[in-house]
């Protein structure tokens, strides 16, 4: 099978891979590049668990071929924290109990990350809209909305929020 050499910037690191044209970006991240934090829930673009940020936009990595990401800048769940120090969005999810089983969480965090990067003070309806493409079966969403609202406040605060 024909393969293609691609170069990606993933979480600030330059990564190279040789992939078949049909390899999904989700599988490339998880199995080729060793970043299994991005999850696969439905593989038909509905659940949003595989959401990553590609060139500033939240995308479904299960509906994207790895070759389409050639030359792109990607942020995955593994790139959100600063080492062991949680990102304020992660902190807020922890404090507000915005996760239970954790399986949808990477996609939720990346969707929230994209929202807050373009809208630092979203209304609850804007939060709900931003995550309406991400299914969560555990939480009923209430605590996720609370977490994103809290994260927005942390990110707006003049001094950086302290880490746990």
């Amino acid at each position, binding site marked *: 099978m024909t393969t293609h050499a691609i170069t990606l910037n993933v979480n600030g690191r330059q990564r190279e891979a040789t992939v*078949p044209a*049909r*390899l999904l970006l989700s599988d490339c991240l*998880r199995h080729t590049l060793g*970043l*299994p*934090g*991005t*999850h*696969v*829930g*439905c*593989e*038909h673009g*509905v*659940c949003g*668990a595989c959401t990553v940020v590609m060139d500033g936009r939240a995308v479904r990595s299960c509906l994207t071929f790895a070759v389409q990401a050639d030359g792109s800048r990607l942020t*995955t*769940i*593994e790139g*959100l*924290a600063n080492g062991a120090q*949680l990102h304020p969005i*992660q902190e807020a*999810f*922890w*404090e507000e*109990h915005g*996760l*239970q*089983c*954790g*399986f*949808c*969480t*990477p996609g939720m*965090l990346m969707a929230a990350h994209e929202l807050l990067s373009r809208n630092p003070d979203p209304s*609850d*309806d804007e*939060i*709900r*809209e931003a*995550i*309406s*493409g*991400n*299914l*969560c*079966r*555990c*939480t*009923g*969403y*209430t*605590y*996720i*909305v609370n977490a994103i609202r809290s994260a927005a406040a942390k990110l707006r605060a003049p001094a950086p929020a302290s880490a746990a």
Partner: protein
Amino acid sequence: MSSHLETNILPPSRQRELPGQPRKWIGQSMKRVEDRRFLLGKGNYIDDHVVPHMAHAATVRSPHAHARIVSIDTTKAKALPGVIGVYTGADLATVVDPCPSFASPPVTQRAMAIDKVRHVGEVVAAIVAVDRYVAEDAAELVEVEYEVLPANVDIETSLEATGDAVIHPADRAGNKAHDESFKFGAVDEDFARADHIVKRRLRWKRSSAQAIETCGCISEYSIVDGGYTIHCNTNFSNFIPFVIAGSLRISPTVLRMQPITTGGSFGSKVFIHKIVILTSGLARLAGQPVKYIEDRLEHFTNSDSHGSDRLYDAELALAKDGTMLSLRFDVIDDYGAYLQFGVGTHGNAMAQVTGPYRIGSFGMRVRAALTNKCQQGPYRGFGSEVTNWVLERLVDAAAEELRMDPVELRLLNMIQPDQFPYMIPTGNIYDSGNFQQVYKQAAELIGLTAWRKKAADLRAQGRCVGVGLATCQERSVYGPTEWWFLNNLATPGFTLTSTPEGISLRIDPVGKIFATLHSVFIGNSPETIVTQVLAEQFTVAPSDIVVSYSDTHSGFNGVGPQGSRFTAMITGACVSASHKIQIKLKRLAGHLLEAAESDLELREGAVAVKGTDRKISIGDIAMQANFFRLNFPDKPEFDSGLETTAVYDHPISTLPHPERKHLGVFYPMVGHICHIAVVEVDPATGKVAILDYAAVHDNGTIMNPKTLGGQVLGGTANGIGTTLSEEFIYDDEGQFINPNFAEFAMPSAWEMPANLKIGHVETPSPYTEYGVKGGGEGGRLGAPSALSSAIDDALQRYGVKVQQIPVRPSTLRAMIRASGK
């Protein structure tokens, strides 16, 4: 109490840690100790796990609901580069036996079909290849010839099937797998003396949990000892090895099930029997480790865990003043093509079938229909979600027919706070409760009086706004008799009576407390709860507790998280283990402090002499206990180390009556829930908007308000989906026509009420440690009833009544149009 219950004698309480004492950690909204790994993308779920040299499997699935397999040609598939092996059901049967079945008599089931397929999606061949892509390519190349048989789809006509339509002709002549009738108390007499009998035909349709993670397994066969090492996201990892080993034709001593983080279960991953057996057989045949992860389509069409699918003819007998006298129903349940847990989901419902009401007797006939659909399995509620809805529908219907207020009718019949423990006609008890208080808090939380008036005003203006209320039970902490006590007395099956939970504890030389759980994580909060209980027990900081999970070789006696049992059961195990270690801590400290053990107490992370400031920290004792043996007397009770295991049995259960005059106590920690919903229906589209919603739950002593709140909210979301949108649709040929997330509509953030209010009442259990009850299922046990009631209220003008679940917009619109108004 009715005379049929006289032999059901309650044993005394074994509660050691009394409710209502001042506590430092229990009751706090402590952040979960599980969360950092999930937030950082390091969850290590089944598909993240890598075993050296593993290959990947894909399956060929039946496109027919019911068919004979005429031939399978694997030649082309085997020739594809990268394919390691292609296997049929006959191949698999050379290394594994049929799946375990808890039904009695059993229904034969294999992980891969032989000769005949019985539902769409059943596996007929499997490919092992170098990667999943190649395996799926090869699956396309397998050629299967079928001879199509008549499909059984309808719940009632399936029972009448003959000839080629019989699904398991070798096991039974027809498609009726179970037909038993019961009377608990004077059902006939109570119906004969009733002034009013309310009768309804009620239909609860099929859906399932659909956790965002599917099921999967990695299995490795060892030629060294003939055993298997298995990673699987089952919830039952330390309870099922005996039965799994049987199917794998090995001894449990060479079966090593590894704990795996589970990405959501809600019951759906309780067992995962087919996948474990399939993957293990493939690994043995292929001669290398094999990973098999369901894709979403496979999980929809061939999981273990479709939910209840029932038709009820139900009757409630009342006196003319509204006093409820008796309940009876005839229920048929469409179990699909296999019957893994027997009619356990109906056994479960016997825990609380008469609800929060003083109903003196209960009778039922329960029939299990086999059809050409995927099998049923557990889903949040395990059958009790349906009987809650059936009873609440009857109560609403009774209120209407008797022209009584539905709230007043409920309050009139509710068990009173001074009547606990209360034994219901089936023999189960409700340990404690204050149902009236739960109702009162819910009514205040949502402003029930104001909403009822506002809804009436809006209806007068032509809008379809309604208010609905449900008062339901939430049983927790099951005993396993529910799996078999409805079986025929001549074939009771394996009459299991144990559902223990165990833990191992060790204190290291610097005083850190290591806890090893014998059950896995499924999205609940086991590590947090254990941390809170151990911090409380040892008067230490949560950061001094380290929690991990055992495999099957190091941890026995763990049944796992299901049936809202885990928090209560692991708390009991923690208390037992802590008490055992505390005895030794005091023995060692007594020697070091030259004090009598009876004068010692634990405080602030130390063992101290009561009434003095003399103390020695747990860390200092542990250092001595681990490294300085000669500082203690030369007696065995001072031997090195601080470690123990403990097993906690079900706190209070009794056997069913030998002739099933009652079923015994088996699900006695019973919470209460009151849900109140305000909805608006768009009569043109049938779409239901939730304008306001309140859910108040009483789950006994609250261990962690935040995590309990998460369970209530999440369960309510499940219940909203179950009621308004989620339905597995099979057509007349048995084709499953919406097995995907685009057409099986689970609530997104938009479908959830923006302002879902929750509240808690705490009436502690007198039987569990600290008085905790389970709280993992209540939302789904209450929401369908409250929403159904609210929709009825909103659609008064049309006379539309919700008599089936779900009522998807198209269903409701059709009902509105059929009303002719």
